């Protein structure tokens, strides 16, 4: 449904989702085109969407799926939002002990309990995402794979894969998926 150029939409999506990225991370030709069209700006090795670019990416998001797919996305977002509240709670428990102090990860039992809660949540998220079909499945399929990869790393003992700030952590993938669903429906995040 994107039609024109999926790579162009991919770059605009990345700019929309991440706000500011290093120009070196973008395809030079695509970025130059976006700058020439007034959809992106580049300064000091960084690039971002202009207001015109934000409007254009919103237009592309609106055309991303057929109208027939939108009720399924609405239903998916409803289910995802319920899981999102739980994810926030689990992530907070991972970062902070109940007394509000920083979790130094020196209590294996505590960390194991939090991860059990995360994996339970992930089971539900995977069922929700992989139960989608057609155009919606194309939108969310890669996210299910990325969440599964982060989970595997956590199961193998890499605790950084829950909240690390790089794009591959469980939280980072989850946040991007949520933002993608919201933008597909033309909505903005509450928090």
């Amino acid at each position, binding site marked *: 449904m994107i039609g024109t150029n999926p790579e162009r939409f991919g770059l605009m999506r990345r700019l929309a989702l991440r*706000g500011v990225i290093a120009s070196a991370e973008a395809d030079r030709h695509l970025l130059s085109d976006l700058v020439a069209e007034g959809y992106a700006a580049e300064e000091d090795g960084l690039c971002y969407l202009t207001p015109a670019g934000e409007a254009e990416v919103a237009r592309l998001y609106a055309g991303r799926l057929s109208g027939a797919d939108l009720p399924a996305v609405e239903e998916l977002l409803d289910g995802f939002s319920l899981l999102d509240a739980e994810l*926030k*709670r689990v992530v907070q428990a991972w970062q902070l002990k109940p007394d509000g102090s920083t979790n130094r990860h020196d209590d294996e039992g505590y960390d194991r309990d939090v991860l059990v809660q995360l994996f339970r949540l992930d089971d539900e998220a995977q069922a929700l995402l992989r139960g989608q079909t057609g155009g919606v499945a194309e939108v969310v399929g890669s996210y299910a794979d990325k969440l599964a990869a982060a989970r595997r790393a956590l199961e193998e003992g890499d605790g950084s894969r829950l909240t*690390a700030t790089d794009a591959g952590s469980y939280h980072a993938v989850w946040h991007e998926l949520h933002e993608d669903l919201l933008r597909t429906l033309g909505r903005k995040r509450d*928090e």
Partner: protein
Amino acid sequence: MEFKEIGGGTPYDGEAREGTARIVEDARDVLSLLRDGDLEKIVVFLRVPGTTTLGPVMRRIRGVVCTRGRAGSHLAIVSRELGLPCVMGADIDLEAVRGRQVRIEPSGAVAVAQVDGRAS
């Protein structure tokens, strides 16, 4: 320097931080911060708790205050991961801090420096 509390939000686990308040509304403001330098003296104030735009500066600024959101918001999660003091849901007027010396406390309090009994 004396500070007067003007409001507050969620507490954080860390130390008090002082710095110059800079308001960030969009990506252009982030690039302005980078151009102006001295990020290590800056406390960023913003309104959007789900923002990702602060990515290029979060490892260098003194702290961040958001007028919306909660401890579970994306900005709070990323800030904690980076050890950056972060106050969410702060009930303050951003114009009251613009360009001023501010102090944020682990209690979530936000205060503005006073000069001769008035905000500096």
